């Protein structure tokens, strides 16, 4: 493979990394703070993609505006879900799991009924390529990397610098202890759902600028999100970043060298090995 082709697939990989990291960050926030497995996270991402599609392709709105609107809408929807579906089962993983499975069915079918099953596409204003050191870089993918980095920095500062962020960290480590210190778990869980679902919506919006979207696109996102979290360790933000970069590069570069199936096999087999030999992941702690 030539240098140009290799750097091209590395960039594709990094764009995928950006998407995976956004999905995984949201999933790990929700899972570690609420103590549940939210398998409908992929459907949240799918709704994010369809919200952007609706604003851009149907209403004819601006793409970036659509991303912001979709983030706010899906984030608020997440707060609603937290209140109605997850709060009653917080910390009871098995029943919350079943609720989120019911959500997969409901959300997929609502979108199917409203938008139909045909794959949809919408255009992004970031067309064309930038030339950097003789390598053509697609704007669309560069924007994803930049936005991903920006949101990551934002989330990092939020958790480091605000009281709410510190409370999130505390609750993810020790829920009962945090409650005993007077932290409002209801409010923090709602905040986590807002942020987590919002990040998924951004990921969905940007993936729609690269590929077509469909009501069943969520299970792919869920698999990748879980894989990244396992790689990095549950609840660890640096872990999710490292895991996302690794998996994105594997998915971006390997298919160019071999088949997509082998690339997928390598990814999943590696994650099974990591689970068996280092269950806490790269950045997670024992437990």
């Amino acid at each position, binding site marked *: 493979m030539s240098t140009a082709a290799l750097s091209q697939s590395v960039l594709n990989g990094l764009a995928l990394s950006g998407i995976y990291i956004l999905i995984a960050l949201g999933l790990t926030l929700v899972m570690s703070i609420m103590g549940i497995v939210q398998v409908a996270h992929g459907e949240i991402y799918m709704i994010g993609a369809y919200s952007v599609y609706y604003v851009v392709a149907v209403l004819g709105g601006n793409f970036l505006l659509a991303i912001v609107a979709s983030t706010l809408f899906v984030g608020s929807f997440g707060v609603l879900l937290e209140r109605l579906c997850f709060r009653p089962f917080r910390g009871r993983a098995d029943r919350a799991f079943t609720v989120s499975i019911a959500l997969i069915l409901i959300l997929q*079918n609502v979108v199917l009924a409203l938008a139909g099953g045909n794959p949809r596409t919408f255009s992004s204003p970031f067309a064309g390529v930038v030339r950097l050191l003789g390598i053509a870089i697609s704007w669309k993918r560069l924007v994803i990397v930049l936005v991903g980095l920006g949101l990551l920095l934002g989330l990092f500062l939020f958790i480091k610098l605000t009281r709410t962020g510190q409370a999130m960290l505390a609750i993810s480590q020790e829920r009962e202890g945090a409650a005993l210190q007077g932290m409002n778990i209801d409010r923090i869980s709602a905040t986590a759902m807002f942020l987590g679902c919002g990040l998924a919506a951004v990921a969905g919006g940007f993936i729609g600028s690269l590929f077509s979207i469909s009501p069943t696109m969520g299970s792919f996102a869920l698999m990748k999100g879980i894989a990244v979290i396992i790689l990095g360790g549950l609840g660890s933000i640096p872990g999710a970043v490292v895991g996302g970069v690794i998996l994105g590069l594997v998915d971006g570069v390997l298919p160019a060298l071999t088949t997509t199936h082998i690339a997928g096999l390598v990814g999943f087999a590696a994650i099974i090995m990591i689970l068996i030999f280092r269950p806490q992941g790269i950045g997670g702690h024992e437990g």
Partner: protein
Amino acid sequence: MIPSLAGIGIVCLCVLPLLLSGPYYVHVAILTMLNIVLASSLRLINLSGQMSLAHGGMMTIGAYTSALLVMKAGFSFWVAMPISGLSTALIAYVVGYPFVRLKGIYFSIVTIFFSEVVVLTAQQWQSLTGGSAGIFGISRPDPLSFFHVDFSSKVDFYYLALVLMLISLLILYAVEKSRIGMVLRGVQQADSLAESVGIDTTGYKVLAFTVGSFFPGVLGAFYSHYISAVNPDAFAFLFTIYILIYMTVGGEKGFFGPILGAAVLTVLPEVSRPLKAFEPFVFAAVLIAVIFFVPEGMAGIPHMLRRAKKGAADA
């Protein structure tokens, strides 16, 4: 009372095909029986406190094993089907040792990824498995002249599925009532306590995973010959999720729960079919109603009603 109820049930199931109008309903009845066995065998694994999501992958392994043995190696279906079950169980046994060391959700996740690996392997290994398209034109089971069945109609498959279901449920029931079932419950409730009194918890968890995976292996073989085709993602993630739903909505505490759950939830979409686009919502609504209002599952409803009645009488 239970044996007589089971007897009546079996008699009803034997005459059911005579009452069903048309092959489509026979097909639904076959699917219902398969789902009952899948949900019940999933519960056996669940008894050890481990929630497996590998049932779809195991069924894929069984389906391919049988299809390949019959189509490429010239085996009879009647030999290939048990071999499929056993080889699926063997694979479960081998991967089971490293897998069951993972606790809780990590075990479930590794079993999801295991299923993905099975699917991707079937897609990649084109020379053997036919790649993404799968294997077509899988022959019907050889005729059983003694019973006068040649598997030219769905009704013949119905009776085969019925026999498979009854045998499977008998085995699962016997395992649960045996010492093994008792130990598994002990492991589920207090893993480290069971280990401290000298029980090989890892061994028992692997045993539950192995025996519980034997059944999807056999059913995969049955299914590939029944629909005469198999492809890599026929039993993908959502398939396994549905089996899990049958089990949890039916109720995982008792033996009867998954049977009830699988039966009701397989037939429900057929009944609500006139509602067209709203049909999945009926399914989801039942699911949510059960989770919120009957935590013990559908099988717990009579118990709950009795308690409510008693409460009203006391008051």
